[in-house]
């Protein structure tokens, strides 16, 4: 009896330790110091609530009865985890972006936030989980029993019952304390998660310790152990293929659909990245957990008297060999497995029950709807707490009623098959946009009816809930409806039979009903959101806020998420909208955000309904959809406008840069010209002054000298006049005050005159000019003097600047698109590209200043040609400097 007291003491200490750890974790998270709480390791360990007492005790019993079949229960989830990229990644992303609080919330959200569906899923989840909770209570009670009988203290039926009740009450208390401390918008429970993680380590260590003790303590190491396994009654592979495949599928499906797994995997997920680690670490955990199961089973079968319950070999083997400490550790492991499962399952179920059943009922009972004042948070918390207690009590009730007789494994499998009915709806919902609410409803109903009829009811035994006659002959004599042999197909394993038909008919009816029906707009929007979650992670579904009273919303939000949080949220929103004060405009955007915040506390469907009550119109109208579409169109239009605008800006910038370059160059030219002009003016002025002083002051000058000096003065004065004439000419031309003296004449004559004038005085250096006189036989009607001035200038330039050793000039006359063109091409090195842009500017002079000139010639030419309606431009690529004079069509035509 002393050991038993120690056991109770250890249990209490352990529970106190868990409370402490959970409390510390909550504190750390609250103070923002809990970064270690959000590690991939904790996430992986929290997933281990998959391994319940069923794993800890039941797996050994399962192995002792059916050999390696127990492995299927861990192979299925391993495959699901390793295939995380297919499914879990998407599920977690959806859960995070939609603020999903439970699997019922997920399914109801996906199918148009239907509360009916949420209620259905919740009820089914409770039905599916209750036996499982009972199983945990049963295992804890029996393990107590095993301990006490080992020490000769037989427990009476009543103490057994009160034990279970005590355990149930303790678990409910823990869940209430740490599961409903606050209404977290993200529905995360650090305390619970950390406690679960610690328990995961405890159960792993306990099972490993027993396993190592068995293999190296009782058997003689690995080789001996393998030989013992082969020699035992489960020594040969006797697995039925259909059971093997079905159970792997079933456990994988249950892993995804169990409410408690959904809770830790999706809802409590802190970071999508954790999934990446868990994808291999969790299969590793499962592998280690199942490693020693067969050795323990085999040694237990060997060691213990025939007829002892193999489900508790993990406890009885150490006890039988007098290893009390190990047995104690093993007991704690089993205790951990059971408690962590019950805690999380109760938490997950209570969220569902409270959000989808209690709150909607409470809301509809309130006459004033959602906008009556008063804090509703206590109502939510209270409903959660009652739900937790209710769920755990249901489990206890089932345990008392079923009498705790069945093997652990079979209860677990029935429960698995029940929740696996969610799978088609879940997978269809996140991969197929065509899945509808009607389809989901029909599929789930069909699946659960078949599950209940073919598996659950017969499991209580023939003659209890299903009569013997029904089992063997079918209901009312319909042979093809026999619960364990549909359509007369006999010989199937009952479990395989039930899983096969329920899954098949569930999927088929879901599919067909989805095809036939037509989804509501909200369903279609949510469907697109879920299926394409990776393309866009925000909800498009929108509230029309024109009728909403922000104040009412504020009142409601305060009641659900608390006064301060609500005020902060509204203030933030108002600031975002650029308004002062506390109340933002009820824009669809804001309503949507608010709904999501509320969804974290009360579930999507309830939040939608509550806002719907205030805003008016609980469903999305065509106008809303139009508004969304409009908004999108506007956004697209706006962005394309922006794009066009930025293109335009780039073009303008380019033009500005070019203009700026030109301006800089011109300014430089002007500076250099000014100094040039001053120089040009000063040189003749200096000589004029000097020579006029000589003339004035010297009396003994010869006549020759006088003539020479005065002609120098004259020449210099002429040069000055010419320069000033040029400047004057240019300014007249530029200001447009020039009057043209229109005459008719032949081009040939003008060119003759121009060549003669330009080359006068060149003497021996006179450059040869090549011309084609036939082409020049064109009569022009224009200001011939001005035109001739241009020609003279161009020919003179060629004479002055051509740097070839034997300079030559070619004058070509032709037509280019109707206009008359006269090209002057020399054989020099031409004008570099950088300077081509500026040679026509005033005062521009190219390259080395070999020849003196003011740099006005080409500028004047350009001005003249502009006046004459033509143009002069540089012609690149002619093997020398080339200028093209273009005369407008009418100049030439008019004369012909």
């Amino acid at each position, binding site marked *: 009896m002393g050991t038993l007291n120690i056991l109770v003491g250890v249990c209490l200490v352990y529970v106190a330790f868990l409370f402490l750890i959970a409390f510390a974790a909550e504190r750390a998270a609250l103070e923002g110091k809990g970064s270690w709480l959000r590690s991939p390791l904790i996430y992986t360990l929290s997933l281990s609530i998959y391994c319940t007492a069923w794993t800890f005790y039941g797996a050994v019993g399962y192995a002792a009865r059916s050999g*390696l079949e127990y492995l299927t229960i861990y192979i299925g989830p391993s495959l699901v985890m390793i295939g995380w*990229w297919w499914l879990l990644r998407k599920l977690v992303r959806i859960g995070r972006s939609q603020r999903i609080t439970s699997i019922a919330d997920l399914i109801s959200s996906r199918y148009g936030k239907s509360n009916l569906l949420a209620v259905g899923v919740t009820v089914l989840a409770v039905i599916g989980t209750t036996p499982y909770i009972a199983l945990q209570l049963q295992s804890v009670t029996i393990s107590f029993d095993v301990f006490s009988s080992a020490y000769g203290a037989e427990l009476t039926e009543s103490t057994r019952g009160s034990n279970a009740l005590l355990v149930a009450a303790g678990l409910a208390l823990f869940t209430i304390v740490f599961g409903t401390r606050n209404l977290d918008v993200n529905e995360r429970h650090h305390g619970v998660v950390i406690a679960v993680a610690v328990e995961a380590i405890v159960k792993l260590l306990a099972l490993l310790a027993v396993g190592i003790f068995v293999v190296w303590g009782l058997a003689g190491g690995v080789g001996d152990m393998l*030989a013992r*396994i082969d020699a035992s009654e489960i*020594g040969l*592979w006797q697995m039925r293929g259909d059971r093997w495949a079905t159970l792997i599928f079933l456990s994988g499906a249950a892993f995804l659909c169990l409410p408690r797994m959904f809770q830790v995997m999706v809802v409590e997920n802190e970071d999508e990245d954790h999934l990446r680690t868990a994808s291999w670490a969790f*299969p*590793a955990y499962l592998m280690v957990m199942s490693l020693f199961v*067969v050795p323990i089973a085999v040694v237990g079968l060997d060691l213990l008297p025939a007829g002892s319950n193999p489900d508790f070999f993990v406890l009885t083997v150490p006890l039988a060999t007098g290893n009390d400490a190990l047995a104690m550790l093993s007991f704690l492991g089993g205790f951990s497995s059971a408690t962590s499962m019950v805690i999380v399952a109760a938490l997950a179920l209570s969220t569902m029950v409270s959000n989808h059943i209690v709150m909607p009922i409470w809301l509809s009972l309130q006459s004033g709807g959602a906008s009556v004042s008063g804090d509703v948070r206590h109502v939510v918390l209270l409903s959660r707490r009652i739900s937790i207690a209710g769920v755990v009590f249901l489990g206890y009730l089932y345990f008392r009623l079923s009498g705790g007789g069945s093997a652990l494994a079979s209860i677990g499998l029935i429960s698995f098959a029940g929740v696996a009915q969610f799978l088609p709806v879940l997978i269809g919902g996140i991969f197929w946009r065509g899945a509808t609410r009607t389809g989901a409803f029909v599929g789930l109903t069909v699946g659960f009816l078949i599950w209940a009829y073919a598996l659950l009811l017969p499991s209580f035994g023939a003659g209890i809930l299903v009569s013997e006659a029904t089992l063997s002959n079918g209901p009312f004599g319909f042979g093809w409806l026999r619960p364990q042999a549909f359509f007369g197909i006999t010989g199937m394993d009952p479990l395989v039979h039930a899983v096969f038909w329920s899954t098949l008919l569930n999927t088929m009816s879901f599919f067909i009903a989805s095809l036939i029906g037509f989804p509501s707009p909200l369903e279609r929007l949510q469907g697109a959101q879920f299926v394409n979650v990776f393309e866009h992670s925000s909800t498009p579904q929108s509230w029309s806020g024109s009728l909403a009273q922000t104040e009412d919303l504020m009142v409601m939000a305060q009641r659900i998420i608390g006064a301060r949080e609500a005020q902060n949220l509204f203030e933030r929103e108002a600031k975002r909208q650029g308004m002062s004060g506390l109340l933002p405009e009820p824009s669809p955007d804001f309503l949507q955000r608010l709904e999501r915040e509320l969804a974290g506390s009360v579930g999507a469907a309830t939040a939608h309904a509550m806002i719907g009550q205030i805003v008016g119109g609980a469903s999305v109208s065509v106008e809303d959809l139009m508004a969304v579409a409009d908004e999108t169109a506007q956004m697209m239009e706006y962005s394309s406008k922006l794009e066009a605008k930025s293109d335009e800006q780039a073009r303008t910038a380019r033009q500005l840069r070019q203009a700026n370059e030109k301006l800089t160059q011109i300014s430089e030219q002007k500076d250099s010209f000014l100094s040039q002009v001053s120089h040009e003016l000063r040189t003749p002025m200096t000589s004029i002054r000097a020579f006029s002083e000589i003339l004035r002051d010297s009396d003994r000058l010869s006549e020759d000298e006088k003539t020479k000096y005065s002609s120098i003065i004259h020449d210099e004065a002429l040069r000055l006049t010419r320069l000033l004439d040029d400047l004057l000419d240019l300014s007249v031309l530029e200001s447009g005050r020039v009057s043209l003296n229109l005459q008719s004449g032949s081009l040939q004559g003008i060119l003759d005159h121009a060549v003669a004038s330009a080359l006068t005085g060149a003497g021996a250096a006179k450059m040869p000019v090549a011309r084609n006189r036939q082409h020049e036989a064109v009569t022009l009607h224009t200001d011939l003097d001005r035109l001739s001035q241009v020609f003279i200038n161009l020919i003179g330039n060629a004479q002055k600047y051509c740097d070839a050793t034997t300079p030559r000039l070619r004058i070509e006359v032709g037509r280019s698109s109707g206009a008359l063109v006269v090209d002057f091409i020399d054989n020099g090195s031409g004008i570099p590209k950088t300077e081509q842009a500026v040679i026509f500017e005033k005062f521009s002079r190219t390259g080395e200043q070999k020849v003196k000139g003011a740099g006005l010639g080409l500028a004047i030419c350009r001005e003249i040609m502009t006046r004459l309606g033509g143009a002069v431009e540089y012609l690149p690529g002619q093997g020398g400097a080339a200028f093209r004079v273009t005369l407008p069509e009418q100049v030439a035509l008019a004369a012909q």
Partner: protein
Amino acid sequence: MTAKHNIPFLERQSYRRRRLIDTIRMLPVIGAVLWAVPLLWRRTQNGGEVTTSDAIIYLFCVWLLLVVAGGWLARTLKRSDAEETERGR
């Protein structure tokens, strides 16, 4: 020289990443096939020809292989993700 080699290098990176994800997608299929092998083992009324110890060794080897491969792939993917982010894409 380096500039010329840079562009195909980037493409090769994202190509590798795609194939890496393909491998991750394929891994559960490989696992399912390997774990389906027991369906082929002969089974008679009194048990089959395969001993339980052989079956245990085979099944756990598959398990270990999947865990190691999964861990390696997850790590490689994370590294490749980090490189992608570094490159600002």
